[in-house]
């Protein structure tokens, strides 16, 4: 396996940043159908607990394949989930992009995410380190893996009615 540090490829950095910012905008807007379309069929969306890398054999906050992502979105959209009807409003910033690996048509990007949720007039702040593994798809990308490591993931959290 050859990995190339490609942080100096500003054109690629701009392209992946634009993609991830667009994803962030979709999530804040709760445009979940469009978000589902960003994924590869085999992609996994994972929020681990602690610093494990073995997500399959560990308890995660979520570890979603395509079916679980669709079910999760369906739960948000149907209006029967009291925690999502209404959901918290969110505003997030994703930044500090570093491309850590480019191989063939795959790009791995690390970033920092800050999310503020508002519900019941109460605001909460969350922060996480995000890894996207993106696969080139025409002029854009698809998400093949997204790992969000929340700060304090192995401590006391709240319940979440949105995605990171």
């Amino acid at each position, binding site marked *: 396996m050859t990995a190339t540090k490609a942080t100096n490829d500003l054109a690629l950095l701009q392209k992946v940043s634009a993609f991830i910012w667009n994803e962030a905008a979709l999530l804040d807007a709760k445009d979940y159908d469009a978000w589902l379309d960003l994924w590869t069929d085999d992609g996994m969306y994972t929020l681990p607990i602690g610093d494990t890398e073995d997500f399959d054999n560990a*308890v995660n906050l979520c570890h979603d394949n395509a079916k679980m992502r669709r079910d999760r979105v369906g739960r948000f959209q149907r209006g029967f989930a009291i*925690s999502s009807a209404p959901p918290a409003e969110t505003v997030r910033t994703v930044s500090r992009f570093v491309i850590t690996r480019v191989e063939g048509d795959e790009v791995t990007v690390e970033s920092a995410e800050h999310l503020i949720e508002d519900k019941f007039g109460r605001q909460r702040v969350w922060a996480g380190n995000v890894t996207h593994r993106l696969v080139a798809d025409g002029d854009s990308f698809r998400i093949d893996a997204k790992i969000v490591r929340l700060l304090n993931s192995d401590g006391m959290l709240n319940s979440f009615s949105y995605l990171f």
Partner: protein
Amino acid sequence: MPKFSDLDALYSPDAKVATSMYEDPDLFKEEMERIFHRTWVWVAHESEVPDKGSFKLSHVGLEPVIVARDRKGVLHVMVNRCRHRAATVCEVKKGKTSSFQCPYHGWGYGLDGSLRALPYPEQYGDDFSKEQHGLKRLRTESYQGMVFATFNEDIEPLTDFLGPKVCRYIDLFMKQGGGFPVKVLGEHQFTVPMNWKVQLENTTDAYHFPVVHKSFMQTLDGATEDMFDFLDKGKGWVEDLGNGHSVMMMIPELEDLDANLDQPIPERFEGLAEELRGEGYPEDQVRKIVRAVGGAGFNLNLFPNVSFSLAFFRVLTPVAVDRTDIRHIAIGMEGGPAAANRARIRLHEHFQGPMGFGSPDDAEVWERVQRGTKGGEDLPILVNRGIVDEEPGELGPRGHISAETGMRAAYKMWKRMMSV
């Protein structure tokens, strides 16, 4: 003399709960003293401290404690507070160590809490007794790997407090090991702005399930959805097991996981069964493991802070009158097939925790209870459902699956403990 002498006004004989029960800080303080300081409180599962030198942090009521296993394998629970100037001696959530040292002035304690050494002891004089300055220790007993501790030296033994019927249900629950010892696989933790009793009431409340968890039910296959439709089938029950404990039998055919092994394997577990067969497990063991993976058919609520819920442990830790920490502990099979444990973990993630398809909805309604409590202080909270057709059980009443019998069991114990 108890400060709250009119307990009938707080929990009436006809099962109505005063609003102040969820929001009076003085009452909360009294509860921490009279209940959490005086009874057996769950602190850990033995698999969380598996080896000599293993430890983990926990709580007994508001008090931070360390659960540690010493070199002889004996479990100790002690207050996480240096006897010198009160600093916590451990802030690592879990791990392995040979001792605990206070970071402030260097007092060092053994795994059993005994004071081993302190720098420059001479200034305390010749009669300073190290024996009397160990970490404050709690009485500690276990049943089926469940570790409980108490500040009350005079309390009855743990198994007497639980009683034989509770012990029997714990034995049944642990059959989820599928022939292997039960082991903690991980946990979800979240905090909810609610009084601890709001959660205490929830574990044997079947009435809320189809309403609050409708969106979870919609993600199940037909057979599983049908299995969770225990309210309409009406075969289950809820029963007061004495001392505040209660059981809610939702799916009676899953009461004993070793029974009915010849039943067809549910569709959702066919893939797992095939994987286990592929690994060389004989058919009878495949059936036993698969049946265990689905979880037990009941919730068992132990007063005051732990419940056994279908396939996991739920622990509540009171933090303030209107704040409670919740832990959902995933369990699996120690030394069992990885595929079976993975299946259990995925089921756990599906429902439990901050991003589960069930827990956030529970958390939302719990918070709504606390928010609603601000209105209509004169209105009582009703936990009298099903009182009309309860039947006498062995240790306490037994009611319809959706009856609030379990809550009444807890409040009966609450009243008993608050009155002495």
